[in-house]
């Protein structure tokens, strides 16, 4: 079975995945964190066993019953053993944040060092991060299209960018379906995955470009299939080593890196997939269509 022959199934698989993702996005949306929506997050070390009901009781006099509460702690701890608390609310003033901490301080005899983390983001800043990332991505896309067009050809450039958009949509789908929080680190992960995926794609394109010169007699589909095959060990080895690093940090790294690493893992996996099954086959489909058109124009 050749990779090129598999392309129909790959296209169908990706389209279904993206459609499911879009349906999920329109129903559930994305679980945006405070980096995007604005809001306040407090991360407290309670230093003893506690329940979320207790924590809610502490917040009730402050009128913050509606806050999102979550117990956190080292990986592998049972829910009851986790001794840290994440409180997420709408944006609060520094004085209101102080009130929360003081309330918990009195209830659980905390010290200043037990306030592990405070994040407070105005909604306007969140919008800016998103807009900035989007503009940067668009410009980076244009830059890459220009370079690939010069070094390869326009069809390669657009197919490569299409594969990147595929990666982005799949990541969004994954985060929407599983309702994993989308925060600042998600943007970093998207940037990383796109960088990885384009790199992966270009190496295969380089093979196609080379084989187009040296194997003129072969059918186009065979050239592409051989190119993917010849680059396959490289593609897999690079993917394996990258996934090794990401998985190790995902499993053993600190809690602050966890959402970021999870996004990376999903992205690198699908980035590798798209380099093999989307980018080059897409170019092939386009090129074949153009060739057929030319032939028809000639025979007409």
């Amino acid at each position, binding site marked *: 079975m050749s990779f090129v022959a598999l392309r129909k199934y790959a296209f169908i698989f990706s389209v279904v995945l993206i459609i499911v993702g879009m349906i999920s996005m329109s129903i559930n949306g994305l679980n945006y964190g405070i980096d995007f929506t604005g809001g306040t997050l407090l991360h407290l070390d309670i230093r003893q066993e506690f329940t979320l009901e207790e924590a809610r009781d502490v917040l009730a006099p402050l009128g913050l019953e509606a806050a999102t509460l979550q117990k956190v702690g080292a990986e592998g701890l049972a829910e009851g053993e986790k001794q840290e608390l994440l409180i997420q609310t709408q944006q609060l003033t520094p004085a209101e944040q102080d009130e929360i901490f003081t309330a918990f301080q009195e209830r659980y005899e905390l010290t200043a060092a037990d306030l592990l983390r405070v994040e407070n983001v105005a909604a306007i800043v969140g919008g800016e991060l998103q807009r900035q990332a989007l503009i940067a991505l668009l410009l980076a896309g244009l830059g890459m299209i220009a370079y690939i067009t010069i070094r390869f050809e326009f069809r390669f450039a657009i197919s490569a960018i299409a594969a990147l958009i595929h990666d982005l949509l799949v990541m969004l789908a994954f985060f929407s379906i599983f309702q994993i929080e989308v925060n600042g680190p998600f943007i970093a992960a998207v940037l990383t995955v796109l960088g990885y995926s384009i790199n992966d794609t270009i190496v295969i394109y380089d093979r196609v470009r080379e084989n187009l010169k040296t194997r003129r007699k072969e059918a186009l589909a065979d050239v592409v299939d051989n190119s993917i095959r010849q680059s396959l060990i490289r593609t897999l080895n690079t993917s394996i080593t990258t996934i090794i690093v990401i998985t190790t940090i995902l499993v053993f790294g*600190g809690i*602050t890196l966890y959402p970021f690493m999870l996004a990376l893992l999903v992205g690198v996996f699908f980035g590798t997939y798209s380099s093999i099954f989307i980018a080059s086959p897409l170019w092939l489909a386009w090129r074949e269509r153009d060739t057929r058109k030319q032939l028809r124009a000639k025979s007409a």
Partner: protein
Amino acid sequence: MKNNRPLLLVLTVILLLALSAVAVDQAVKNLNLGLDLRGGVYILYQAEEAGDAAGGDKIDRAITIIRNRIDALGVANPVIQREGADRIRIDLPGIEDQRAAREVIGRTAMLSFVGPGGETILTGAELRNAGVTMDQFNRPAVSLEFNPDGRAKFAAATEQFLGQIIYIHLDEEVISAPTVESIITDGNAIITGAGTMDEAANLALMLRSGALPVRLIELETRGVGPQLGQDSMTRSVQAGIAGLLLVLLFMLVYYRGFGLVANVSLIVYLALVLGVLTAINATLTLFGIAGLILSVGMAVDANVIIFERIKEELKAGRTMRTSIEAGFQRAFRSILDSNVTTLIAAAVLFSFATGQVRGFAITLSIGILVSMATAILLTRFLLRQAARANLLRAPENTGLRGVSK
């Protein structure tokens, strides 16, 4: 001569690894870590002036005042920067008590002189200086010096409110309530009855440093306690090292002799990247680590591309030395195009993004450039030397499976 080659190569490798160890050691000691990794407070302020966005040198004055306050707090390496037209960014790394720190900065409130009827006479923007002095009875007092604008307003106010009280507010709080004893036209006033010498000095400091010409609104605050920052950092670094070791192991098992060469290259690469980041005084954040991971992946990738190409040449029946040369030549274009494409994206991010995303672009760009350099120059040098020393023989020493002669 011929017998010396392996020894020479081994010595070169030992030297490279020793230098790398020194570089990594220095980097670990001197590299700036972001607040998300080591703890500290980051605050982004929007400066506003009576509802409008403030601009111009008022922001610069505000920055100077904030800097004085933070210096008085004794924070090492604070960063206080203007961002855009009307924003101020403050980084206070390694702060122990983030609440206390925020409170001190939060005290950078607006100073105003208010008449007995509650009307604002002038603001801190019109106060040029404040100091400790002595009144005619040799008691501690606070001297005030206004700028020309303030001089005129103050003259008018002292005339209007002669014998009455003028309140000095720091935000809503009254920090002093002196009685006007005479009309002051020269812009130099003193506040008598300021208490002890210490109290007078304190009031003068508050007037001086509290004389913020703008109102600051917290747009974004991120405080990470040193405990969490350190915990997260230690665990992530340990995990990162473990991941890297697994990669080195993978390369060694899969490519054997070639893998060994790649591993030396990768270690030197990592030392160089960390060295460059330290040398340019960059600050490593979570986003920076993302860039690093990607560039490590690309550094491994470059070596893998090279080895796979060499393997193909060997399969085609060429000798080890010609295969190395031909393999590099073919791999070079592939590495160049793939890296340049990613570099373009990184460069765009660098020039258009601010803050965190920019940190990602910096480490990624440096990582790509260094990885291209080490893969193309160092890996090739080491492979050539190893081949000349007859240390690489396919297939048993190279791990290039499927290669037979």
